[in-house]
């Protein structure tokens, strides 16, 4: 499974757009990029998933360049409630649980 690298932490302010970049140089042809969000003392929850170009849902956008060696999670107009840890994962549609690696994630802190 492709290893991912993310910044350990990021800070921003309410109302700003936040972009978190994940590096996955060894991504395989069949791999998708998935992001999870985790609040303190809760389990991670799915945010968004994509394969190439751009994906947008009601929560976030995911930008994936043509070479797919990195991806950027974009959170528009963040609020205090977006303070959480964000995990970038890479895997295909039939991953075994033992190969789904969360890593340490990016700790996002939003200030008033």
């Amino acid at each position, binding site marked *: 499974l492709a290893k991912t690298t993310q910044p350990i932490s990021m800070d921003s302010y309410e109302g700003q757009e936040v972009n978190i970049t994940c590096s996955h140089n060894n991504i395989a042809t069949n791999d*998708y990029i*998935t992001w*999870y969000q985790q609040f303190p*003392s*809760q*389990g*991670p*929850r*799915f945010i968004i*998933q994509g394969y190439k170009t751009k994906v947008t849902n009601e929560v976030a956008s995911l930008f994936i360049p043509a070479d797919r060696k990195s991806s950027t999670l974009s959170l528009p107009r963040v609020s205090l409630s977006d303070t959480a*840890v964000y*995990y970038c*994962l*890479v*895997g*295909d*549609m*039939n*991953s*075994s*649980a*033992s190969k*789904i*690696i*969360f*890593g*340490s*994630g990016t700790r996002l802190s939003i200030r008033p």
Partner: protein
Amino acid sequence: DAGVTQSPTHLIKTRGQQVTLRCSPKSGHDTVSWYQQALGQGPQFIFQYYEEEERQRGNFPDRFSGHQYPNYSSELNVNALLLGDSALYLCASSWGVTMNTGELFFGEGSRLTVL
């Protein structure tokens, strides 16, 4: 539609004791995976249960064991507790042994403190 439920939410044990944590998967799911999350770290895969059998295992000692019942609920047992076992234990449910990486549904976890 109930999501993944875990119990207890918090518990405190002493070194050497044994603990059992419980998980009920999301309705329609038949597979349960357990994770250990130490403070400041990402979730680490312990093992997965499907059709009442352990199917995959991460790098955890035999002190960690589990069980899955016919109704798909699962238990995680940890024997001879060590201080280092203090963590948030997460249960995730899914359908089938393999999955899309975006198809893990997590419970809120059981916070274990070992004194």
